[in-house]
C-alpha cells in the first residue's frame, strides 16, 4: 500500500456513491494484546461484505493520518487512523492504518463485488 493521496482517494470514494457496494470495516489490536501485557485489552471488530449504499463520502486528515466517513440513508460508516491506500484487483479501494511495526490497526475497504475469502 502507499501513503494516502487525499485527492485520489476522494475521487475513488466518490466513484462508489449511489451504488450497491460491499464494505469491509475492521479494527484490531491483535489476539495477543493481553497475553503480552496483562494491563492491555483485546479489542477488535470487523464486518466483511456488508452490502451498503452511500450518498456522500469524504476523507479528511492532516497529511499523515486520515478519517473517512460515508453517509448512508440511515447512518454512517466511519474509520479513523487511515494512512495507506491501494486499488486491489480491478476496482477495490483499500484503506488501512498501520502501527510502527507495520501491523494493521484499522481497515476500510469498498468494492462493487464481494471481497474474496
Amino acid at each position, binding site marked *: *500500500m502507499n501513503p494516502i493521496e487525499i485527492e485520489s482517494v476522494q475521487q475513488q470514494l466518490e466513484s462508489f456513491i449511489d451504488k450497491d457496494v460491499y464494505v*469491509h470495516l*475492521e479494527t*484490531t489490536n*491483535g*489476539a*495477543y494484546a493481553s*497475553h503480552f501485557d*496483562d494491563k492491555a485489552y483485546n479489542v477488535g471488530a*470487523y464486518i466483511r461484505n456488508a452490502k451498503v449504499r452511500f450518498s456522500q463520502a469524504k476523507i479528511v486528515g492532516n497529511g499523515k493520518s486520515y478519517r473517512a466517513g460515508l453517509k448512508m440513508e440511515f447512518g454512517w460508516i466511519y474509520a479513523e487512523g487511515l494512512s*495507506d491506500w*491501494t486499488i*486491489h*484487483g480491478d476496482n*477495490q479501494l*483499500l484503506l*488501512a492504518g*498501520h502501527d510502527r*511495526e*507495520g*501491523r*494493521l*490497526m484499522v*481497515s476500510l*475497504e469498498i468494492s462493487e463485488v464481494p*471481497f*474474496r*475469502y
Partner: protein
Amino acid sequence: MEKHVVVIYPHPDDESFGAAGTISEFREKGVPVTYLCGTLGEMGRNMGSPTFANRETLPEIRKEELIKASEALDIELQMLGYRDKTLEFEDLTKVANHLKGILEDIKPSLVITHYPDHAVHPDHNALGAAAVEAVRMMDESNRPIVWAQAITNNYYEDLGKPDVINDIRPYFNKKMEAILAHKSQADGMLGKFKENSEIAADMEEAAKERLGTEQFYIWKY
C-alpha cells in the same frame, strides 16, 4: 516409534513457532508428518515489515508461505478451509467430525494440537477442542495419542509440568528456516536481527531460549 504424526493448528506459522523442532525430529527418524492447517490466517495484522501485504493479498501470501514452510519441514499439508477468527463460532461437533474423517483416513499414531482453553488465541482453543473431541469420538482401539500444547502465561501453575518436554535446539536452524518461510509474519523478528548486528548474537540466544523447547501434555481420555 510413531507410525504417522498429524499436527492440527489453525494458522499458517503455528506449526513453525509451536512444533517445528518436534516435527523435524520425527522427520529425521522417517516418521511421516501431516499438517492440517485450519485457516489461511486471513485476518492476521502482520503485513510484513516493511509492509508488503494488505488485507486482501494476505491470504494468498500466507498460503504460499505455508507451502514453503511445509516443504522446509518436509511434511504433507492439508488446508481445512475455515476462516481466521471464526473457528470458535463454528459447530464444534461438525468441525470434530470433519477432523475425525481425516484422522480415520490417515490413521496416525500421534496427534499434536493446542490445549483447549490454554492456547491464548480463540482459534487455537477452538480447533484444539475440536481435535480432542475428534479423537474422543474415534473407536478406542484406533485412537491416536494426543499431545496438547499450552501457551498461556499460567499454564504451568494450572496444569503442572508438561508430560513431553522436547529440547529442540539440535533442530533450531530448521525451525528458524520454517519460521522465516512465513515472511509476512516473521519479518518483524528478522528485522530486529538485522537492525543491530551487535545484538544479533544476544537475539539468537533469546530466540533459542524462547523457541528452543517444545512442550506438550498427553491428553487423558
